[in-house]
């Protein structure tokens, strides 16, 4: 196992010790065997401790880990027969959004996802998961098709934000996001959104107005990237960690605030440790919620979604 995140340093050191002992193989003395066993137990416990109490910033680091599974990985691991659809029928095809029908445990669902990209070539192809207006419009087109044909929608959310460039303004990025919020809130099929990595502000919300909002255990969801928040609050991007803590962006904190419906467990040390296990956990959660939602008559489904979002917000009244 590689412990490459800064807060995993103590774990990395323990592991070095373990490897040094393990290399002795047959030649381990009895007391060294005990040392090895103890060290392995220690590593397990320390990893559990750290990962049970990750700070918001540490969670962000895990959510952004370079080996963390992306949407394409989950689609490959949990779906069959995924057929990718392309284009918004107006301007072009945004590779940051990956979408199309697939079989999930034998039933058809429509996947709507952010895809970030693993190596440099992929990252550029997928624009690092920063969707353009045509990406959101592609997702709208596909969601409307799902509604027309009566299939549920599953959104895998993983973006640091919608693309903020000038050409995106020209093509109406704000309107594209807004339109999706409007559309999804009245879509007459079940929608489940799962934040698998970064839920980056409006760019994430644009595909997560859903009947159920799930978050992988070490994912984040935020109104603005911590760096952007730091810049807005203190005119300096350097205080992202403080902003992340104050805004409570981690999945665990958001669940505690009742802002999301369920946390999907990750393998010890983060999803990047075990793609298969994480995917299995995600699949189980998706199937469970899908089964519940399918029971609801459409009007009830719509009203529950409306009331779910209606209830979000804390305020008081002047006495």
């Amino acid at each position, binding site marked *: 196992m590689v412990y490459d995140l800064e807060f995993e340093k103590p774990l990395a050191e323990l592991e070095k010790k373990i490897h040094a002992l393990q290399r002795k193989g047959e030649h381990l003395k009895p007391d060294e065997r005990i040392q090895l066993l103890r060290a392995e137990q220690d590593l397990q416990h320390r990893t559990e401790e750290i990962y049970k109490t990750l700070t918001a910033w540490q969670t962000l680091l895990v959510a952004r880990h370079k080996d963390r599974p992306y949407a394409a990985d989950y689609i490959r691991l949990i779906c069959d027969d995924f057929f990718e659809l392309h284009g918004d029928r107006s301007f072009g095809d945004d590779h940051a959004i990956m979408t199309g029908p697939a079989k999930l445990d034998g039933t058809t669902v429509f996947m709507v996802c952010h895809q970030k990209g693993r190596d440099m070539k992929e990252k550029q192809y997928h624009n690092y998961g920063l969707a353009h207006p045509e990406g959101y419009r592609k997702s709208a087109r596909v969601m409307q098709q799902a509604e027309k044909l009566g299939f549920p929608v599953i959104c895998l959310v993983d973006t640091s934000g919608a693309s903020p460039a000038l050409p995106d303004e020209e093509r109406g990025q704000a309107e594209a996001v807004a339109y999706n919020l409007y559309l999804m809130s009245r879509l007459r099929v079940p929608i489940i959104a799962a934040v698998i990595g970064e839920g980056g502000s409006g760019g994430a919300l644009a595909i997560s107005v859903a009947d159920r909002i799930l978050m992988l255990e070490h994912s984040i969801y935020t109104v603005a990237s911590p760096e952007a928040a730091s810049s807005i609050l203190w005119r300096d991007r350097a205080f992202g960690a403080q902003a992340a803590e104050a805004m409570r962006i981690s999945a665990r904190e958001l669940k505690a605030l009742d802002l999301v419906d369920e946390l999907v467990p990750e393998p010890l040390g983060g999803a990047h440790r075990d793609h298969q296990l994480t995917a299995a956990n995600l699949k189980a959660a998706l199937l469970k919620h899908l089964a519940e939602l399918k029971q609801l008559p459409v009007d009830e489904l719509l009203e529950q979604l409306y009331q779910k979002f209606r209830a979000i917000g804390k305020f*008081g009244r002047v006495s």
Partner: protein
Amino acid sequence: MVKEAIPPISAQASSADQPKPGVHPSGNLAVKCIKCKELLYGRDWEKNLKVCPRCNYHFKLTAQERIDLLADPGSFVEIDADIISVDPLHFVSRSEVYADKLEEKRQDTGMNEAVVVGHITIEGLPLALAVMDFRFMGGSMGSVVGEKITDVIEFGIERRIPVLISSVSGGARMQEGLYSLMQMAKTSAALAKLGEAKIPYFSLITDPTTGGVTASFAMLGDITLAEPGALVSFTGPRVIEQFMHIKLPEGVVNSEFALQHGMIDAVVHRRELRHTLAKLLHLYSHNGNM
């Protein structure tokens, strides 16, 4: 000694944008346009609806000023006046104490939050409206702005009257974290219900309208109007510049840009606003009923 004869201008958030009064040698109160530096005489400036007669820059209006501009005299009835923010995250960071900031803004502006909601008539036709105010934390949207806007949209559904939202905003309120982001979905959902009830929604965009407000209700109008030269964008010039490593010329992402790129219906001068809305209310009525 400088005497104030122009209507009270909040000293706080808008002080960088509002002109500073001074006394002209002739004795009239004078303000300087922050865009073109033209000297504007207090009473003329007021009469010109706080629009610079030389460069046409539309200064920010307070919520009350906007309502007074649009409403038939005495027709405004406020709702939800008593709703206030309660610091849901207990946001304290680097000496930024949200609860204190809220209290400070309430004192400074005399407002409880960044939006006033209620209903008016324009030429006798009823209109539910929400008017945002930049002085209260830059018009940022948190739980209360979202709640009040949703309430007034639901009021429109209940009474079957059209809804107007006048936007001005620096975006979502950081200090309320994900609660703020979710207000985008909440308000958009209410507008979707309004649409299903076949009731029109008019969006008015004023300077500046950015971020989560633009990417939700501001861009969902059945009709979307903007004042001339208003900054209207998803992120804003600074973010665009940082992301693209370029320098933008002044005022690129504004109302005219949005119109040119097919994103809004019309740019309307402030003096035409009331009349335009009256016309739209007539156009969008089915023989007087909704």
